[in-house]
């Protein structure tokens, strides 16, 4: 064991506690999306114009806006119920989306039925927009299955937990759309959207996805929800440049949108999908948002971030600004909001009841569908297991 000893490491006594400079830098980084941030609805609920993207929101009438509000309230409500169910031992874990409702509902509602979506594991709001019933998500977190919806029918792939994997899968799917002639001006034109986080942008799979998509002009929207944190690591641990700027190096457009602004997310994603469907893909969208809860119910964010930061982001809540807009600019009355709240509570109750009533998987569930064609080894193991299992019956 011969190692040169000349190297003197730099030690800082209290790196676990953020310094004043770190606090200021953190607040600044999370406060501003930068001059390029696309916004149509300010945190104060004011509709602002954007010469480039207004036309992608021009058809949003009062009813549509109310529906977006409803989507977000319902999604937040069952997300909170997920946390509660975990705390009560009904779920092993829950991955909260709190704060990311606009980024998910806005982009999800931009999709056409024929488009395909590849989520990571926090996209409960996108699942909702694809018509996946929230109860179909429960098995993953209760430990009974890996997602019970049909990914082909819903055009919503299974959740992917291995960070970044889905970016290549989405790109391959989009290549297939192109190879089958589904890119162009036709009404049957298709695109794919791929969801991932700021942390994921460091993975090789994401980089390779960008390369492939660029080389094959694949109709895929890379939709990065920059919620400022990858568990305990701030975005500065992953990048020197704003993430949307990375796209330029791969040769396709990148854009940063206010991820807490459901209208802007909808408009920008509509634009990005249209680019892809008409052959100008891929596109990178960075939805600038904030993870308002822990990474998962197993995480303790007080170990690595400051409460001030959360307080700041609460002022930019994605749901509140739509509510304010509905009241101030459209005179929507309290009765509407009460009605949505009641509907949300009903959804939460149904979600809870479904969870509590979920039967355990069949004993031989683990042997089910491992292969498309039967494996003699596995069949023998299944039979031996079932015989062994039966030997306990009545014991």
């Amino acid at each position, binding site marked *: 064991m011969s*190692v040169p000893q000349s190297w003197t490491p*730099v030690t800082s006594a209290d790196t*676990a506690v953020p310094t004043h400079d770190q606090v200021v830098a953190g607040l600044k980084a999370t406060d501003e999306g930068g001059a390029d941030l696309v916004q149509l609805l300010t945190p104060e609920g004011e509709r602002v114009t954007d010469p480039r993207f207004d036309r992608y929101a021009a058809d949003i009438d009062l009813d549509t806006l109310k529906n977006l509000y409803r989507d977000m309230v319902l999604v937040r409500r069952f997300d909170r119920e997920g946390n509660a169910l975990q705390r009560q031992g009904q779920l092993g*874990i829950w991955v909260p989306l709190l704060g990311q409702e606009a980024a998910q509902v806005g982009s999800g509602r931009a999709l056409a039925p024929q488009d395909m979506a590849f989520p990571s*594991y926090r996209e409960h709001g996108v699942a909702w927009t694809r018509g996946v019933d929230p109860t179909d998500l429960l098995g993953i977190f209760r430990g009974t299955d*890996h997602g019970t919806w049909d990914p082909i029918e819903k055009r919503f792939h299974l959740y992917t937990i*291995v960070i970044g994997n889905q970016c290549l899968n989405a790109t391959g799917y989009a290549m297939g759309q192109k190879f089958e002639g589904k890119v162009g001006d036709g009404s049957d034109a298709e695109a794919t959207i791929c969801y991932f986080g700021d942390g994921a942008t*460091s993975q090789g799979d994401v980089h390779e996805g960008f390369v492939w998509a660029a080389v094959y002009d694949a109709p895929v929207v890379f939709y990065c929800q920059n919620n400022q944190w990858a568990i*305990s690591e701030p975005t500065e641990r992953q990048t020197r440049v704003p993430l949307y700027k990375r796209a330029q190096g791969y040769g396709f457009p990148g854009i940063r949108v206010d991820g807490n602004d459901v209208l802007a997310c909808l408009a920008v994603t509509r634009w990005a999908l249209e680019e892809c469907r008409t052959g100008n893909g891929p596109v990178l969208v960075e939805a600038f948002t904030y993870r308002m809860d822990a990474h998962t119910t197993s995480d303790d964010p007080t170990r690595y971030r400051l409460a001030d930061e959360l307080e700041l982001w609460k002022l930019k809540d994605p749901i509140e600004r739509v509510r304010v807009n509905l009241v101030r600019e459209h005179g929507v009355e309290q009765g509407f909001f009460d009605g949505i709240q009641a509907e949300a509570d009903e959804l939460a109750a149904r979600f809870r009841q479904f969870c509590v009533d979920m039967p355990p998987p069949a004993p031989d569930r683990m042997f089910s569908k491992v292969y498309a064609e039967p494996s003699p080894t*596995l069949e023998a193991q299944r039979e031996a297991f079932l015989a062994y299992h039966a030997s306990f019956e009545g014991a």
Partner: protein
Amino acid sequence: MAVLTMAKAINDGLRAAMERDPKVLVMGEDVGKLGGVFRVTDGLQKDFGEQRVLDTPLAESGIIGTAVGLAIRGFRPVCEIQFDGFVFPGYDQIVSQLAKLHFRSQGKVPMPVVVRIPFGGGIGAVEHHSESPEALFAHVAGLKVVACSNADDAYWMIQQAIASDDPVIFFEPKRRYWDKAEVDVSATPPPLHTSRLVRPGSALTLVGYGPVLKTCLEAATAAAADGTELEVIDLRTLSPLDLDPVFDSVRRTGRLVVVAEAPSEVSVAAEVAARVQEQCFHSLEAPVLRVTGFDTPYPPSKCEEDFLPDLDRVLDAVDRSLGW
């Protein structure tokens, strides 16, 4: 003598190694400020600084690949992979560079890198958080592979792994992180690549490693209550295997049951069984039996009790062997 959880014992072992050698680095996702998702690296960044405890970008190939570069430069990186199922983006760097550089350079470029991997199931987790991929590493020439089973061993083994000039894949049984044991920091530990007889017995030899060792010991206790004395051996090292103590034992008992969480096909357990029948053929009074996970992907957690070898399945195999 301190009573420590396994997580704390590894933390203390890392700390001791870092104090001893300034070239020892800890690197991985969330290992710094957070102290790792299992808190195994808790407090290390605070005490050793950000240049020795690196919160890396989120990419396992990057973690392993840069560790290889740092090792070429004379550092001794200890990489943390957050969960077993996330090592695969780093597998290429492990197999192609980490494992082979010593051989390719004919010893001019040693690879004193440790890759710590919390492994195994039993914690009710979602997909990719409960796997036992040790055979995928034990199969690769150039890598050394170990698995600790208790706090005392963990404290010593992590330091020995860091001191080794070979790359060591260091498996930590995550469902035992919170189990406590006495750790004697003044003891002289056995060499890293040795297996250990942990409970003597005459009726049958029970071999396990990592998380199932506790299950094996419970089985031995249960069998003893019925008057059957099982001999229990903790494998500890999966590559190279140290099977002489197993051969000695089987020559005395005539029976062997190998226990592991990993699926059985082409596994470490299969290798143990093959070697024992080569070396102890005439002593065997029953076929070598394996109690393992099934040859399925790790199932949803509500099925894991059935997947994991438990006391009943181990005792069932013991009965079958004894009744042969």
